[in-house]
């Protein structure tokens, strides 16, 4: 797995390097450390020095690279050119942009155009023990009409499920994975039988509803030696419930699917991934 860790002067740079180094050490690879400095290159040395300190504390090493300009543009460009499979970046505003007051945070902007999974880091550095995997069912035919998202050569595994399995394998120790599906549905009219709108995960699995089948498939795929996997359902607005679950469960990492699809889908469907990255107060991995 090729990993790119981008630092640019964010307060979360240290946590980003620490988390990226954790994953790289487990994957037995040396990550690439990308320092995006101001156009005059003045801050590059200090960025690299801080990053190396964090790497040393994780007993990891990395090849380094220095770029100047926009954090988002340079990071995405390097990620594409280098064929990286994971980019780790701390959340913050782009210090090199004159429009930074009106722009979205760096993590939100990178996630929108990323060629690979992006780990947006915020909060203090911490080891990954409790993972929250949020599956909307976007790749599942039982829930999503976009069946062409599923690659038939890979069975029923969605990109999110596949990457989650890979990550959990890398971290295999004592991890706990909670698979969450948020039902934000409400009854469209009186007379609708709404017991599924109040059911918990086990009830939905027993009733073989689309949501229950999704959770069951996720749990089956993610149950590995040393990993405990639990299904969970919440009822409410998608973003609110994910933020609440991440906080209530004190999860170390939140995993979600990216806002994808052909042109019209991206235009018409709400970009929930960006909202979640913006509002969750802990690391978010967007696949």
């Amino acid at each position, binding site marked *: 797995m090729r990993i790119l860790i981008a630092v640019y002067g964010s307060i979360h740079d240290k946590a980003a390097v620490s988390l990226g180094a954790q994953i790289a050490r487990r994957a037995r690879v040396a990550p690439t450390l990308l320092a995006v400095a101001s156009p005059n290159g003045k801050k590059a040395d200090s960025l690299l020095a801080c990053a190396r300190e964090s790497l040393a504390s994780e007993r990891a090493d990395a090849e380094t690279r220095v770029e100047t300009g926009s954090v988002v543009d340079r990071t995405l460009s390097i990620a594409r050119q280098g064929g990286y499979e994971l980019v780790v970046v701390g959340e913050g505003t782009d210090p090199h942009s004159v429009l930074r007051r009106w722009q979205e945070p760096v993590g939100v902007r990178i996630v929108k155009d990323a060629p690979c999974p992006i780990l947006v880091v915020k909060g203090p550095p911490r080891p990954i023990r409790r993972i929250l995997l949020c599956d909307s069912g976007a790749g599942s035919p039982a829930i999503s*009409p976009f069946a062409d998202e599923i690659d038939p050569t890979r069975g029923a595994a969605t990109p999110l499920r596949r990457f989650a399995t890979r990550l959990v394998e890398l971290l295999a120790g004592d991890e706990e994975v909670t698979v969450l599906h948020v039902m934000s549905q409400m009854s469209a009219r*009186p007379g609708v039988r709404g017991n599924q709108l109040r059911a918990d995960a086990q009830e939905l699995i027993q009733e073989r509803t689309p949501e229950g089948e999704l959770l069951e498939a996720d749990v089956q795929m993610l149950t590995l030696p040393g990993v405990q996997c639990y299904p969970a359902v919440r009822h409410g607005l998608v973003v609110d419930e994910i933020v609440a679950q991440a906080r209530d469960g004190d999860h170390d990492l939140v995993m979600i699917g990216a806002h994808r699809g052909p042109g019209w889908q991206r235009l018409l469907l709400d970009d929930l991934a960006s909202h979640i990255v913006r509002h969750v107060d802990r690391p978010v991995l967007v696949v």
Partner: protein
Amino acid sequence: MSMEPKSGQQPPDPVQAARMSTLPAPFPRQSAAPAIKTRRFALWRLRTRVAKILLFVVSLYLFILAITLMKEGARGLAPLLRNLLAVGSTASALGFGWLFAYAIMSGSPVAAAALTFFDAGIVDKLGAFAMITGSRLGASFIVLLIGFLYVLRGRDRATSLSMGLLALSVTASTYLPGLLFGAGILHTGVLDGVQMQSGALLRSFIDGMVDPVAGIVVSLVPNWAVFAVGLGVIWFSFSLFDKCLPQMTLKESQLGWMSRLVYRPWVMFTLGALITLMSMSVSLSLSILVPLSNRGFVRRENVIPYIMGANITTFVDTLLAAVLLNNPPAFTIVLVEMFSITVVSIVILLTLYKRYQHWMLGFVRWITASNRNLAIFMAAIFFVPIVLVFVR
């Protein structure tokens, strides 16, 4: 494509059943050669389409007839409304429109009535404007009433009432600020110059095909009853129009994903406006959401902007009524109503939508949390318009 379980199927929709009963029988499934089957299917489709077009034409004719009758009958009602009910102030007009919509379980006839009252000089511009606003508040009650009946039969409160409560809350929270904003626009006269004329063709149609029938009704029934007949005819015309809508086509379109996907607020806002432009009824636009999911569900995120959009184009029929009355100030009143609601809705969507969404859903959650809260709410929505009617 959907694998939703059959155990989750909803009970039959009475609205859809009524709609289907006036159309040609379903295409018979008989064994026959493929070519004959295709021809029979094509003929059946042609008959269905012709039936819908005829229904549409008849409903449009009845709508025009109803407006003519209500215009004539409104003058006969003037003494009753002025002296007995004392509909004079803006607040009393708001309360009257609200209660009137409760009584006839529909908002559009009340809005049309408001324009005929204005035409007859019973209410002034602001009074007509307030009465139209009241009609929308009353119209939102219909979905709520059906839900309340289910609750009395033991169904879950939240499931039965959420949609109705949300419709009423969103309507009230946009229309009441819109009332203040619109009153200001009416006062300044900024939109007075924007007019739509009925045109010579429509005028000659009314003179030739509608006025003779209206004249017969006027000669047969007392003055005060002409208005009631007109109200009945307009109500019937709307029910006929409901039957013309291509509901099943919507289900198979991409709208069928509304229960599963979260759309951007402006997409749902536009969709609500477009669907209600065709249906001319907010409650019908909401009922269209029902067959779009086998389980009768929609995403919470999609509903609020949908209702906001629907609340704007629901006035299209009232706008047509104003054109038929040939009363430019009446047209301005409806235009100002649509404009002010549009502005309020767009401001909400652009500036504080997330907070608004939480407030509306939180309010609905509070009401359905207990029977006591529900009773307080139901008492308020009856008590408030009654009090308003008596404000001088």
